[in-house]
């Protein structure tokens, strides 16, 4: 029986709090003993506190840029190429509610035009102090259907900008997709 004892990781025990009487995992149902309680140093009242304080102390959270870096990282993981990340993050610093709009815009474009390539950039008018985000959509075949779906996607996103101070345009520069 001793060979069947599973020592579950401490953190997992702490986060999910498995008491033996409630452990109805497949291993438990097979009659394998979950040994978390048998560990002498397992004590939920102290472990998380020491984990937080000693291993991973809380950080100085009031930064604004690191939240935007995390957001841009997520956007990149969604398959979007961010052309000028510093300019985009600077814009988002001033218009943080555009993060929500960008997320929806990416979803909307992908719904209408699956398989296209997306590029997020900041447009700066060279003559006047005007900046806004642009989500460029690129594809291998720029036909009438593409234009129509792009227009519908843009219409859907523009509705989200009603009470926002920032702006995003969804368009294509008709460049070749490499």
């Amino acid at each position: 029986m001793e060979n069947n004892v599973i020592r579950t990781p401490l953190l997992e025990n702490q986060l999910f709090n498995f008491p033996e009487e409630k452990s109805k995992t497949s291993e438990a149902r097979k009659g394998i003993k979950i040994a978390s309680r048998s560990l002498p140093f397992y004590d939920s009242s102290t472990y998380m506190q020491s984990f937080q304080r000693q291993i991973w102390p809380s950080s100085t959270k009031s930064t604004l840029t690191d939240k935007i870096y995390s957001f841009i990282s997520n956007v990149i993981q969604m398959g979007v190429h961010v052309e000028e990340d510093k300019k985009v993050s600077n814009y988002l610093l001033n218009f943080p509610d555009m993060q929500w709009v960008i997320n929806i815009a990416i979803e909307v474009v992908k719904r209408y035009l699956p398989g296209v390539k997306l590029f997020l950039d900041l447009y700066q008018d060279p003559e006047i102090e005007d900046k806004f985000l642009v989500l460029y959509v690129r594809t291998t075949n720029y036909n009438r259907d593409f234009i129509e779906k792009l227009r519908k996607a843009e219409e859907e996103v523009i509705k989200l900008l009603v009470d926002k101070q920032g702006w995003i345009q969804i368009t294509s520069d008709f460049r070749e997709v490499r």
Partner: protein
Amino acid sequence: MKKKYKNSPIEEAVCEFRFTSNSWDLTVPGLLYEMIKEEFPIKEQRTIQEFGFGQVQGSIQQHVRNTELILFFSEDRKMTVQLGPGLLAVNVFKPYPTWSVFRQKIEKAWNSLCSLIKIDRIQRIGLRYINNIDIPDSRDELGNYFRLYPFIPSEFRQNIISFNTTVIFSYFEGRDQCRVQFLRSPNSTDSKTKIILDIDYFLAKEPVDPSEVFTWIEEAHDNIESIFEASITEHLRKMF
């Protein structure tokens, strides 16, 4: 940082106070605004969500808390004061305005708040610098630019998407700690590696007497500066 760089990599610096006060009420943000509005005239309200774990009757439970913050921005939006229940933070953004200017903004915000409410206890102070450094040639060895970086065996280097190395240092017999994060931004490309050097110095053990706050901040800044200077090579220093 005392050493002045023409092209400083500091993307953001923040000084954050977490405190308890029995005299806090909803009029405080408006009163503080009156005192700092010449330097921070733009007001914005934001809601932040904080996630945490707490213990309820012996079991660990996850909780989400919404906190309303008021942000006061400078005219050019390159500096901000954040205020909420138990929280005051002063942020400066690129281009970094020098330590003496940043310190003066911290003093102004903190002293103004202290004239409005009685701070019962300072729970935490943090001084954090986020540096964003572009390495022009991603094939270059990190060791040419940094003295603090993860060692990656050469056979794995082609496969790197990202890395994140964290070191925590202790100061003044554990009173303070400094967390140094060295990470590669996922937005790095084949031609450019983007490195974030994040130095977060904070009060780990209470208390600091409110009268000693600025001594603490000055020491924190000196230690951050030492870590930064020790983390980079002369080659990188010349690029700033």
